């Protein structure tokens, strides 16, 4: 499968909604989506491999306000005074809108679904995106756990990195159980990505 952002045809673009936007942002989004689609393909063939995510979460660089680890995966950044990066903060908000009704407050888990704070430690960034985009199903005599596919839900799909970064920060105890008190300003790139992904009002 080609994951060249220049390749703007193909059904998978249509399913991810309203992506007719200007160059940089679109490339960024397409890169994420390619990753998701690729990861989904892997899941379809081999299933999700459970492995410790041993990648050092330390941010080594920043791209338009989004911090990346040495592997180039999104990560959190917490300043000594507790100020968190925008994506951690945004992820907190999105998590408590879309995810907490099943997974419990602060990624802690519930009687209904597992604590994602622990789950992100056992899955790679790609596995995470794939699970959110295509859902999971664990139905047996004793288990009846089903997670829906959020790939078509812009309230989730447009904020996958935000959710990942927030949960990664929780997994590494970089942020506590509560709304982060202080956060960096919303980067213009995040605003543009949001507007184009959500469809401007």
């Amino acid at each position, binding site marked *: 499968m080609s994951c060249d952002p220049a390749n703007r045809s193909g059904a998978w673009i249509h399913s991810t909604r309203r992506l007719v936007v200007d160059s940089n942002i679109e490339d960024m989004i397409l890169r994420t989506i390619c990753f998701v689609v690729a990861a989904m393909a892997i899941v379809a063939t081999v299933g999700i491999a459970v492995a410790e995510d041993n990648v050092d979460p330390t941010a080594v660089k920043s791209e338009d306000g989004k911090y990346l680890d040495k592997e180039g995966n999104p990560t959190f950044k917490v300043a000594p005074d507790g100020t968190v990066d925008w994506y951690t903060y945004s992820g907190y908000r*999105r998590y408590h809108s879309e995810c907490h*009704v099943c997974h419990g407050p602060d990624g802690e888990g*519930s009687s209904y679904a597992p*604590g994602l704070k622990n789950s992100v430690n056992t899955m790679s960034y790609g596995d995470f995106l794939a699970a959110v985009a295509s859902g999971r199903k664990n139905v047996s005599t004793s288990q009846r756990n*089903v997670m829906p596919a*959020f790939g078509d839900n812009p*309230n989730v799909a447009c904020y996958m990195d935000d959710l990942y970064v927030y949960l990664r920060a929780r997994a590494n105890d970089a942020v506590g159980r509560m709304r982060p008190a202080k956060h960096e300003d919303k980067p213009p790139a995040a605003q543009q990505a949001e507007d184009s992904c959500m*469809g401007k009002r």
Partner: protein
Amino acid sequence: MRKMLFATCLGAMAAFAADAAYANEELIKMSQNPKDWVMPTGNYANHRYSQLKQITADNVGKLQVAWTFSTGVLRGHEGGPLVIGDLMYVHAPFPNTVYALDLKDENKIVWKHEPKQDPNVIPVMCCDTVNRGVAYADGKIFLHRADTTLDALDAKTGKVVWSVKNGDPSKGETGTSSPMIFKDKVIIGISGGEFGVRGSVTAYNIKDGKLVWRAYSMGPDSDTLLDPAKTTHLGKPVGKDSGTNTWQGEQWKIGGGPTWGWYSYDPELNLMYYGSGNPSTWNPTQRPGDNRWSMTVFARDVDTGMARWVYQMTPHDEWDYDGVNEMILSDQQVGGQARKLLTHFDRNGLAYTLDRGTGELLVAEKYDPKVNWTSGVDMNKSSPTYGRPKVVDQYSTEKQGEDHNVKGICPAALGTKDEQPAAYSPETQLFYVPTNHVCMDYEPFKVSYTAGQPYVGATLSMYPPSGESNMGNFIAWDGKTGKIVWSNKELFSVWSGALATAGGVVFYGTLEGYLKAVDAKTGKELYKFKTPSGIIGNVTTYEQGGRQYVAVLSGVGGWAGIGLAAGLLAPENAAAWQGAAGRAAAGRALESAERNVDTAGLGAVGGYAALSNYTALGGTLTVFALPQ
């Protein structure tokens, strides 16, 4: 010949009509037999009161477990069993297994019904795969499945007599509520307020499952079954298209107002009563206007579905205060006059008493003193804001706007009370109410709608009220005056339906798993026993072979299980909230918080306890009786 045919036809019609009315009369008669428990609500008035008095305030302390039964399902177990003669009917959450047990023969399984349902319905059930129980009439057991299918089962064999599909889970429509049988109709609601469904109530014929009428919570008059001239709101006609003209554009089509609560019925007035839930989305800015008729008490004619009167409790909801809680019907003296009353404990923290014939508002008072989003309801009939709650600006998520985190709103979205039904004793004339004692921060923001996907639009965090550590209370309430008579603190929200009895005992369950018995007059705790899992089910009583039994389903889950499993807050957050150490350094804050919590008076962990430290999943029916 023609004459004869006509006569036969008339005769057949009359016979059919008599047959139709029979189900209702049969049920009324059966519900007067205290040995049985024939409908989920105890009786049509939703009293959850039993005339049985073998178990009394004096001897309840000797109660013992008589027998238990595992449902084989792990999820949250709401509702309670039915008892009809020698058979008990026990239901379970998804996959919605129903068992018929023979009470006369070692509680053996007579039949079991396990419908095949697509597991894809599981993730569109907002707050666990709960089911609130089955109903009985006309020799059939009615099951409202998660996937919205209504199954009518032969009560003796469990065989499916007929089956109809009420909604579409691919749009987020699901079934959690218990059916109720009024006359020859089975009434069911719909869940999915967090998925942008448009709520409706539907009446099916108990004989064949044929749809008789469907009434939506919002939409044109032909959908809402509101008569512009005859249906009243606070004594005035609602006017034309009241179900669309307080909405902007076509938002009403995904307007919410689900109907997953309990239903009551007054056979004399031929009116049924229920409430509608939250408008969609939780972000109020995206739906300007009063959003009628979400958050509304409905009184509908059972035969036609036409609304006699409506009352919107929380116009333009800004906090997810669903109005679905039960409407309890009582006949009491108010101001020296005999009145036919309806009492309702709303999620918004106000307890309402209305005249159930006319919809006249008589009482609207807070049933938790911590409720702060409103300063009260305008009771002045000549005021332009008559019947509306006065919203305190500081706690208005609409006034503060999108992307603004409004702090310290009481109650939290789970309400001062959720679906867990209260009981009413005609003897003490008191209501016994399981309540939540939880506050929240609420930040609304823009969301877009995708069919079948969550449509929420707000970020929430919840915690006990400032300075307090108990997350629940079990209270006795005087509906005539709007006053708390007594109040017992509970560590966690009380998420179990109450039972009042002629023995002067009131029963309820707790989230840790205790079945508790308290004195109906004083609230004094008389007995407790820890069942295998947390209780979110409703307590039932029945008599078999001369013994009175008390039964309850345990099996933690539901919204309570989701919100409280991990505890509402960690100690460091509790400290920040309590202001005890909010500004201190993190380490010191934690230490101080632990001290704080230790001295909270409700055990070592105080109000910030994690439910997961007390109980785990698993559905079990526990049945109690006095020793023989």
